[in-house]
C-alpha cells in the first residue's frame, strides 16, 4: 500500500495541466434536457 500511494501521488504531481480555455467534454450521460426537468 505504501508503494501504491507513492505512485499515485507522483502521478498527480506529474499531471499535465489543461491549457487555458480548455472546456472538458460533457459527461456522456444523462443527455441534454430538451424541455424542462421535473
Amino acid at each position, binding site marked *: 500500500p505504501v508503494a501504491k500511494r507513492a505512485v499515485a501521488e507522483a502521478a498527480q504531481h506529474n499531471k499535465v495541466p489543461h491549457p487555458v480555455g480548455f472546456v472538458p467534454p460533457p459527461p456522456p450521460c444523462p*443527455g441534454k434536457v430538451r424541455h424542462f*426537468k*421535473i
Partner: protein
Amino acid sequence: VPAAPPAPLGCDDPESEAAAEVAVGYINSHSHYGYKFALNRIENIRVIPQGLNNDVIFLELDLLETTCHILSPTPLENCTVRTFTDHAVEGDCDVKLQKVDGKFSVLASKCHSHADSSEDIIQLCPDCPLLANLNNTEVVTAVTAALSDYNSKTPDAYLKLLEIGRAKIQHHPAHIVFAEFAVAATNCSAQEAKDNAEACQLLPDDQSNFGFCKATQVISPSQELEVNCQLYGHQPGVTYSPPGTS
C-alpha cells in the same frame, strides 16, 4: 493487434438520438389512451454488441406529456409539450432495441408516468389549477354536462365518451373545473339519440370517428359551461362554443 473497442455511446450522440426517436415512436404507437409523449432527455444508454452490425441497445428515457391526444392525427413533432405550470406529467421508460445493419427495431418497452408534485406547482404558481383524479365527482359531472351540451346543440353524429384524458380544478379566485376528454362517433344522429341513447353503437375504429373535447365549467361565483370539440380524420375541424357562455 486487436482493434480497440469503440468508445461508449454518449446520450447526446446522433445514434442515441436516432434510437430514442424510434423508441418514442414505438411507445406512442402502442399506447391506446392518454396523450402522446415527447422526448425530454436520454437518461442512459447501453450497447451490447451481438455480432457484426448487430447490437442490442438499452435506453432509459425521460418523456413529457404533450397536448396531443393519442388518437390525434397530429404528428408528434407538431405537438406541444405541456408546460410546467399546466401540471406536467412525466414518463420514465426503459426500452430495449435491436440495431441490425443500421436499422432499429424495438424489442420491448416499459413505461411509468407520474405527475409533478402539487407542492412544486403551488410554489411556482400559487393560483394555478392542479390535476384532479379522473374519477373525481366534479370532473365526471363537468364532462357529462359538457358532452350532453355539445350533443344537444350539434346535429351531426351523436358522440359518446371514450375517456377523460386529464382534468384540473381551480378553487381560487373562482371554482372552475377544466376537463379534456376523447369522444367517438356513434351510428345515431343527435335526434335518434334523444329517444334511446343507450342503443347507439360506436362506429368501427377509424380515425375519422374520433374527436377530442375541452370543457370549462365554472361552478362559482357564476355557473357557466363551455365546450369545444375537434373531430379528427377527414371531417373538417369543428369548433363549438354554446352561445351565451364565456
